[in-house]
Structure formats: C-alpha cells, structure tokens
C-alpha cells in the first residue's frame, strides 16, 4: 500500500472507517461541515431530512442530499433524472466542492450544465452569474465515461491514488442501470435453462447468481466510499416493469434487490401526472399546468415510505427546476389522495422481509427472471 500516505487515514485501507471514540464522534457530528447538498427544490430538501419541515422551526439545519450516503433517483425516460442530478451538481460546485460525474449511458449535455451553472444561485447569498465563474466551477468538475460495468468497478471500487479527486463532495453515476442490463442480460442462460431444466447445472446457477452478488458488492463498496470520504453519492436509474395483479404493469427501478435496497439510504422517484391548479376564476377542473413532474421521496434516512412517499411538484425550465407550491391536501394521484408529509404510515423497517414477499408476489416471468428471484430470496434468508 504505497499510497497510504496520500490519504489521511491511519488505517491500512482507505475503504475502512477510522476508529474514533464516542465522544470524538459526537463532537465531529456537531462540528464537521458535512453539509448536505441542496437540490434547489425546497420541499424536496426538507423531505430528504426524513422528518416534518415544520418541526425544525429552531435554527433550520442545512438540508438536501445527504453526504456519506447513497441516494438513488429513478424514473421513466425523459423525466428529468439527469436534469435534477445536474442541478444538484451545480449546487455542489457552487458550494466549493469538486464533483465527479460518471456517465454510464449517453454523455452529459454540456451546454445544459453550463446553463444551469450560470444562473442558479442555489446557495443563497451568492448570486453571481458571469461566465467566468462558470469556468471556475467547471475546473472542479471531473467527467468520466464508463462504457461497461468493469469500467465502473475499476473506477469506484478499486483503489487509486487519484480517485476521488480532492475535495470531492458529490459523485454522480448517471444511468447506472444501463451497465447492469448490459453486463447481465436478462436472458440467455437463465431463460434457456428454464426451458431445459437439466442443463441448469452448477455453471448456470453460478451465472445467474452473480448478478445479485455483484450488485451487493458494488453497493456495499460504494456506500463505504461515501462514508469514508464523506461524499454524497447520487445514482440515477432507469425503470423496468413488473406485473402486479391489481394494476397491471408498474414501473419499478431497474436495479433492485435486498442487498441493493439496504445500501440505498435515500430513494427518489420522478414521474409525471396531469395537474390542474384550482383557482377562483377557472372552471371546475382548474387551470392546467403543463410539464409538471413529481418527485416522490420513497425513502429518506433509511426509512421507507408507503407508495410514492412524500411528493414535490416541479417543472423543468431552461436553467433550473422550479418548484410548484400548492395546497398539498388538494393533490390527488390517480384518484387516490396523497397525504403529503404525513404519509409515514408504515415503516418498512427491516426491508428484508417485506421485500422478499413483494418479490414473490410479482411475476417477473416476462423477462425470464423468475429463477433469479428465487435465488434472491434464498440469499435474503442467508443474510
């Protein structure tokens, strides 16, 4: 370990948390500037704290994407996952940190990031908008492309003295699910072995089990990276469908599983719906507002919420995401009222149990994954 002097930890591996005494830890919590990274959407920031906004009426602590943890954003194509990630990136850059952006699918649209960086005065107080400062911010922006899963593993899970760059406070992996879909095609061996059960040999099982093992390995190493370096790690993920008996095909994060879900401390879903803003003058339906996106905080601080969780509405503008504030009691999603901010009905607590139940209930046969779900549940029991 020739590189051990390059990091500040006394332990032999940079992936291990240093030992601190309890009193020191307490002091660290109250003093270290592990400020979360604001998303630029106020309500979303508040929901990410995992508690009611109103409760913290005393000195409002900084809020946003938590550092030292892994956050996942998922949603259908074109919904604004990347744009939200860009806004968070801008906010992190403006607070003076470095940002690592990893593109797992297509490349970031640079002009868009410039637009967002140039205007957003996310951190209040400083509202500069000259191009020079954009270039200054971009000096701390590190861009990587990972065309395959091994590339991502080499980047994030294997030690290098130059990664992460100094002062990194945010790592974004855009569309991480693409790599998994590519590395573990949902078919060949496992589907053929379904048709021909005799061939489901040791080798076949090995191959189908690897997906879950790699997933678990990656998420645990990523969370360790986040924790040791006090970095906020933001993953965006695409969706697949799962068939549920009552509603038909429902969008579901493309990467999920017991190990993965426990590694993700915050999960945000972005989706769309129609929204009519009630007004005195307008007719019964109210005025239609186009392009409304909804971000639901499904999990915050390790606690899962029911359904889509607490919901924030926003629209995407050229240079930023703008929140739409409404009387939240009026919001209805597909007919069922969303109880905003109070929707902490049921803690899913230790997700392992409920998750594996869900897993069995869902028929994933369509993609030939049935066999693997079985493996997942046995894994869940082993853990």
């Amino acid at each position, binding site marked *: 370990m020739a590189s051990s002097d390059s990091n500040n930890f006394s332990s032999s591996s940079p992936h291990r948390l240093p030992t601190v005494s309890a009193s020191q830890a307490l002091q660290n919590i109250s003093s270290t500037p592990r400020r979360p990274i604001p998303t630029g959407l106020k309500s979303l920031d508040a929901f990410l704290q995992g508690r009611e906004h109103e409760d913290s009426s005393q000195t409002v602590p900084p809020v946003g994407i938590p550092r030292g943890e892994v956050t996942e954003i998922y949603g*259908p*194509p*074109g*919904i604004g996952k990347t744009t939200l990630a860009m806004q968070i990136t801008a906010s992190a850059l403006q607070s003076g940190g470095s940002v690592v952006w990893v593109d797992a699918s*297509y*490349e970031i*649209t*640079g*002009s868009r*990031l410039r637009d967002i960086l140039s205007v957003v005065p996310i951190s209040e107080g400083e509202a500069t908008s000259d191009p020079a400062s954009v270039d200054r911010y*971009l*000096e701390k*922006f590190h861009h990587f492309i*990972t*065309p*395959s899963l*091994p*590339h991502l*593993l*080499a*980047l994030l*899970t*294997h*030690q290098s003295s*130059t*990664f992460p760059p100094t002062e990194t406070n945010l790592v974004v992996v855009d569309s991480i699910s693409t790599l998994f879909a590519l590395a573990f*095609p*949902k*078919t060949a061996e496992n589907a053929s072995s379904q048709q021909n059960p005799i061939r489901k040999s040791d080798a076949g099982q*090995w*191959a189908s089990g690897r997906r879950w*093992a790699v997933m678990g390995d990656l998420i645990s190493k990523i969370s360790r990276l986040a924790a040791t370096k006090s970095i906020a790690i933001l993953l965006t993920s*695409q*969706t697949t469908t799962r068939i*549920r008996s*009552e*509603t038909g*095909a*429902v*969008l579901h994060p493309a990467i999920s599983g017991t190990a993965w879900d426990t590694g993700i401390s915050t999960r945000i879903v972005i989706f769309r*719906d129609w*929204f*009519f803003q009630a007004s005195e003058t307008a007719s*019964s339906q109210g005025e*239609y507002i186009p*392009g409304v996106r909804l971000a639901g905080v499904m999990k915050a601080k390790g606690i899962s919420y029911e*359904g*889509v969780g607490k919901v924030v509405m926003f629209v995407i503008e*050229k240079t930023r995401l703008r929140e739409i504030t409404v009387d939240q009691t*009026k919001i*209805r*999603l*597909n*007919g*069922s*009222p*969303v109880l905003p901010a109070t929707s902490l009905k049921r803690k899913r607590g230790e997700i392992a149990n409920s998750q594996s139940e869900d897993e069995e209930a869902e028929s994933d046969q*369509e*993609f*030939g994954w049935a066999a693997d779900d079985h493996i997942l549940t046995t894994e869940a029991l082993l853990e």
Partner: protein
Amino acid sequence: MTDLLHTIPDFPTKLYTHLLPSLEKHLITTTDLLTLDALEVAKRAHLPLLDVRRLASHVVAILQCRLGLKTDNAPSYQNAGEGQAGYGSLRKTGKEATTRLSLISTLDPSIDEALGGGIPTSCITEITGESGAGKTQLLLTLLLSAQLPPPDGLSRPTLYISTEHPLPTVRLAQILKNHPVLSSHPSPPSLNRILTLNTPDLESQDHILTYQLPVALARHSVGLVILDSIAANYRAERSSANTPFALATRSAQLVRLGALLRSLSREHNCAVVVANQVADRFAPVSTTSRASASISVGNVFSSSPASTATTSVPAPSVLSLDHQQRFFTGWGAEPSTPSHNLKTPTLGLVWANQITCRIALVKERDYGSAGTGEGEVAVDDIGGAEWNSRRWRRWMRVVFAPWVKATGERERGVEFEIWSGGARVVNKAAAQSQKAM
C-alpha cells in the same frame, strides 16, 4: 472471458493464453474478476492463484489507465497498457465535457428551432411515427445536410442502413435539386458521399452492426448513421412467439444494440438517428380494478367528486406503465385524450431506455372543415369525412431530449409538410388562406 475483449479490445491476451480458456469454461467474466477475490476465481477455474491475481490487477490497471486515473495496482504492467490510442480518453475535464454540441440541421429554421438547432452528435435520436408520417423524408434531408460544412452540417459523409427498402436515391436527387439551401450551396452535398448498408434480417443486422459498421465509420469518417428502421427486423423475428424466452432474448438484444450504437456514436463523434415504427396501444383490460384505475387517470389532480369516488386505487398505480408511458411515448400526454386509439413506438420501454432523444411525427387527416381547431382529436372523426391522401396534416413533437425543451402536452408541435425539397414547416398564414379558398 469472452467479454474481456469487448471491454478492452486491445487487451494483450497473449500473456494469459494459459488462463483464458479455463476462465471461459467456468463462466468467469471480467466483472467477476474485478469483484471476486482472486482466490475464489482461482479455486473455481482451477488455476494458479498468482496468475489469476496478476491478470486481475492487469485488467484493473488498464481500465484505470483508460479512465485517466493513476493506478497503483500493478505499475510493472503499465507498459503493456500504454502506447495506444484511447489512453485516458474516458476522462474529460469540465471544460471538455461542456463544449458546444455539434448539430446537423434539418434545413428548416422552424424545425431546427424546435429541435434546439438540429440533431446532435454522440447520441441516439429516435424518430418515430406511423408510416407516411414523414420519417424517411426527414432522414433523407439529414443525409444531405450532414455533408454541408458547419453550422448546417459536419462536412462528413453519411451512412444509411436500410432494413426495409433500399435507399430512395431518386427522391434524394430530387431533394438535392429542389431545396434552395442544398442546390445553391457552394459545396453541395453529393450522393456519392452517402454510403449504404442493407440488413435484410436480424442475424445479418447483428453482424453488420457489430463488425462492419465500426470499420466503415473509422474508414470514411462518417458523421451521421441512419438506421431505417430499427423495428423492422425485430418485428419479423418476433412473430414466432411472445414467450417469456423470446421477450427476454429480444430485450437483451436491444440493450446490446443500444450500447453498441452509443459507444460508436461516442467514439466516432457521429450522430445516430434511428427510425421507429408505431403500434396501436391497447387500453387496459377491463378487469374491475383496472377499469377503475383507467377512469381515474382522466381525473388526476382534479378535486372533482368523480375522482374521490375511486380512492380504493392504490397510490403506486400512478406509476403504472399505462399511465406513465403517455409521457414518454409521444402519444396520450394531453389530459383529455381518450385512452383508446393511441400509438406506441415499438420495442417498448427497454428500447426507450436506450435512446437519448425521441421525436414523434404525428399525422392526422385533415377534413378541411373549419372546426379543426387545436386540441380536437381526429380519432373521434374516423369514418366521418372522405379520405383524401393529399390532405394529411403532420406535426413534429419533441417527446424528450436532453438538450432542448420537450413539446408541451397541450401543444401539437411544429406542423410541417412534405414537398419536393424534403420537409418544411407549414406557414400558418398561408395555410389559413388556402383553407378559406
């Protein structure tokens, strides 16, 4: 280890010929090599531990090199990974990553404006629509305009991969002759600079795209690749069965195709444009619970009594594919659209996840009646008026794109028409006066 050469095409396999066959046999992938302990791999593949460890650290070293990282895994092997193009090419500085897009113009200012300037390089753009909606017309114009020098094009040759019909050269020549920008340009595009490939079936498509396309791109410095259409071969193959096996195979093929096109477009900095067909979307099957879900869809967010009646619908139903796909397929985003008679681009969500941008071309019958106002849905009128092939109206909608604002749900998009010079925007005033006559 078949994937090793996909991951690192120029990996010096010679050094490890004694390891690779056994790793292959035991299904050890590059991913496994990077995640598992060398001991476990060695045990499984019955290979000497030290050799496996050496291979693993060599792979990591090369990958980290490509990513522009200083590696401290195996300095002694770095020589083997150096000295080739692509060193560190996967890393960019902030400035490099935010350079301006290079765009290919559609040669119509209004269409370009809606597209944020045109079709950019390094990503996959999908143009979808019914047959006759104008997909090919738009693509043909791009084949020519990409040859123009910037800002209209890239001054590079173009490549047309056809799956259905051969390149309509007569039409190309017509566009070239009739479009004012093309015909009067000092360095006009030439049909000689359009390469074509034909992929009659899925097997040959796979082979051609994987092996011939990269060579062609590199040799001719192609700036635009058009695949017209992506769906044809998959649709033909698929007719056999809708079994889970067939669906899974297709989804894997699409994921691979997406990754291939993406990496080609990035490595060669070229634009990839694919045409996609549409299929009819079916309304949810009328089991009782689904019916209630689909009814409530129309009442989202309104506080009318009708929607309060259906509170039994579980909240996640807002995430149902039927509802969410209204917003990314290009059909059905308007709140008052009926849930029947909608179109859906083929190949589904799996493919939608692969593309960067989706452009939908919508065509509707025009009955010439004064009542054809904005927001009226033509599907209600089917059978009403006489069909007349010359009276189609066409719109272009940007469904999603990372560089430009999508077309709003209540907007119809840019109306365009097909003429001898390609596709052009319908002049609103002219159209009105024509209607009055």
